[in-house]
C-alpha cells in the first residue's frame, strides 16, 4: 500500500513523470478529438444514407446497395475493437507511414468508430416526426432540401448527444490502443500498470481519463440541451439534461465491438 502511494506521489511530483502525464493528456485529447471529428463526419454521411435511402425514405436508393452498406456496418461493429484495430494497422500503414504512436492510431479508430456513429446518427434521424417530413414534401421540397433543412436541423440535439457519446467511446477505444502501440494516457496506464506493475502511475492515468470523460460529457450535455428548442423552461432543461446524460451513459456503456 505504501509503495502504491509512493508511486502515485512520484507520478504527480516528479518533473519527468509530470511531463509524461501532460504529454499523455495532450495526445489523448488530440487523437480523440481528431478521430471523433472524422468518425462523426463519416458516420453522419452513412447515417443519412441509411435513413434517406431506405425503401420509404426521402430518397430511396437501390435495395442491394442499402443491404451492402448495412452488412458492412454490422460486420465492422461486431468485430471486437482491439482486434479490428490490429487488423487495420497494417492497412493504414502505407498512408500514415508508421503503425506505432498516436497518429497511427487515429485512422483505425475512425474506421472502428464510424459504423457505431452511423447507427447513433440513424437513431437520431429516425426520431424526426414523419409528419414534419410530409409537410415539407407538401411544400415542394427536394429530397436534398428535406435532409439539409428539415431532418438534420430537427434532429440536431439528438445528433450532438450522439457525437458526445462517440467522443467518449473513442476516448475509451483510444486508451485501449495503448496495448497495440497507440499513444496517450492509455499507453501510460498499460506501460506502467500492466508491463511494470507500477499501479500508482496507472491509477493516476486512469483518474485523468475519468476526469476527461466527465468534462467532455458535462460540456456535451450542456450543448445538446441548449440547442434544443423543444424545451423552453428551466425545469424542462434540467430534466432534459438528465435524460441526455443518461442516454449518453447507456449508449457508451455498450459500445458494440468493445466486448
Amino acid at each position, binding site marked *: 500500500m505504501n509503495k502504491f502511494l509512493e508511486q502515485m506521489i512520484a507520478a504527480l511530483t516528479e518533473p519527468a513523470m509530470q511531463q509524461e502525464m501532460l504529454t499523455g493528456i495532450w495526445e489523448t485529447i488530440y487523437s480523440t478529438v481528431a478521430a471523433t471529428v472524422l468518425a462523426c463526419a463519416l458516420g453522419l454521411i452513412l447515417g443519412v444514407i441509411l435513413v434517406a435511402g431506405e425503401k420509404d425514405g426521402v430518397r430511396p436508393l437501390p435495395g442491394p446497395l442499402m443491404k451492402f452498406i448495412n452488412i458492412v456496418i454490422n460486420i465492422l461493429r461486431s468485430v471486437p475493437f482491439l482486434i479490428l484495430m490490429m487488423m487495420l494497422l497494417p492497412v493504414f500503414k502505407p498512408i500514415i507511414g508508421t503503425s506505432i504512436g498516436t497518429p497511427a492510431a487515429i485512422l483505425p479508430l475512425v474506421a472502428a468508430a464510424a459504423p457505431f456513429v452511423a447507427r447513433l446518427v440513424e437513431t437520431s434521424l429516425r426520431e424526426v*416526426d414523419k409528419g*414534419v417530413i*410530409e409537410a415539407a414534401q*407538401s411544400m415542394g421540397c427536394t429530397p436534398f432540401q428535406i435532409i439539409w433543412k428539415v431532418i438534420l436541423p430537427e434532429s440536431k440535439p439528438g445528433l450532438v448527444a450522439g457525437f458526445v457519446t462517440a467522443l467518449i467511446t473513442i476516448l475509451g477505444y483510444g486508451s485501449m490502443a495503448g496495448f497495440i502501440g497507440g499513444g496517450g494516457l492509455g499507453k501510460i496506464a498499460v506501460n506502467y500498470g500492466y508491463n511494470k506493475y507500477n499501479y500508482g502511475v496507472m491509477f493516476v492515468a486512469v483518474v485523468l481519463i475519468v476526469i476527461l470523460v466527465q468534462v467532455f460529457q458535462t460540456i456535451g450535455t450542456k450543448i445538446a440541451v441548449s440547442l434544443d428548442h*423543444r*424545451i423552453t423552461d428551466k425545469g424542462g432543461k434540467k430534466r432534459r439534461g438528465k435524460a441526455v446524460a443518461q442516454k449518453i451513459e447507456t449508449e457508451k456503456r455498450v459500445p458494440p465491438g468493445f466486448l
Partner: protein
Amino acid sequence: MIELKHISKVFPTADGDFQALSDINLTIGDGDIFGIVGMSGAGKSTLVRCINLLERPTQGEVLIDGENLMALSPARLRQTRRSISMIFQQFNLLMQRTCLKNICFPMEIAGVPAAEAKKRALEYLDIVGLPDKANAYPAQLSGGQKQRIAIARALASNPKMLLCDEATSALDPTTTRSILRLIKDINQRLGITVVVITHEMAVVEEICTHVAILDHGHMMETGTVEEVFSNPKTEAGRKLVFPEGACIDQFPVANVVRVVFNGGSSYEPLIASLAIDCGVKVNILGADTRNVNGKAFGSMLLGLPEDKNDAAKAMNYLKAQPNVTVEEVPDYHE
C-alpha cells in the same frame, strides 16, 4: 379547379391488398370550401393526399386547373405543390425554428430573398393574429396558436388551394371555431379554394359550401351542404347528418312522421304554430336541427296524435308549409 377522376388507391399489406379508395370522382370549384366527411378509416386522409400526390393513386387522374399531376416530372410536381398548401392535425411545425423562420420556410424553398421573405412572414403573422410570436418557438405555443402559425406558413407560398387534414381535430371547441373562422376569412379575402377533411359534421356546417360523404373508400354522395344536410340520400349520409336519428323506438306512438326542413327561416316556430293554428298537439320524438348561415337544416321526428282526424289535420298543415317536406316513418319500431 380540382378534378379527381376514377381515383382508386390500393395499399398492399401482409394479409392481402387493402382498397383504401374505390373509383372516386370529385370536382372542387375555385373558391369553394369543400368538406370531405366520413368516419375514421373511411379514406379521407388518403383522398386528400391524392390531391397533392403525397399518396399516388393506384388508378385515376388528378387534374389541377386541367393539368394532370400524375403525368408531371418530379421537378414540375414540386413546383405545382407550392400552389397547394396543406395543414395538418398535428400542425407539423419545425420545432427547432422560430415561428417567423417556420413561416419563411416555404419561401426559402422557393428561393425568395431572405429580406423579402421576412417582411412577408411578418404580414402573415399579422393575418393569423399572432404578430407578437415572431421569435417564439412552437413549443411555447398552445395548440390553436400552433395551427395559426401552420396556416401562416401555408399561406406563405401564395397558394391557390389549401388542404386541411383534420386541422381542428386536436383542438378544443372554442379554438376550433376560431380556427374555422380564420380559414373562412382567408377563403373569402384571398379567394383560396379550401378542402376540409373532417369527421365532425359541425365543422362542415360551420364553414363548408360543398360536402362529400366518404364511407369505406366509396364516395356515397356529394353536393352543396344545403342539399346533403336537408336530405341525405344514403345510409352513410344519414348516419353522419343525424347520428341520433335511430333511437326512437322507446316512444310507442301511432303515427310517426319525419319533418325535413329544407332551409326556410329557422326562426319560424313550426311546432308552436301547429298547436295554435290547428289545435293539434304533437310529440317531438327527436330532432336534429342545424343552423347553416341563418337557415335551418335538419329533421324532426314527430309523433302524431292517435285520433285520425287530428293526425290528418296536422299532416295537411305540415305539408302546406314552404320549405318543409313531410314523410311517414313506417319502420320506427325497429
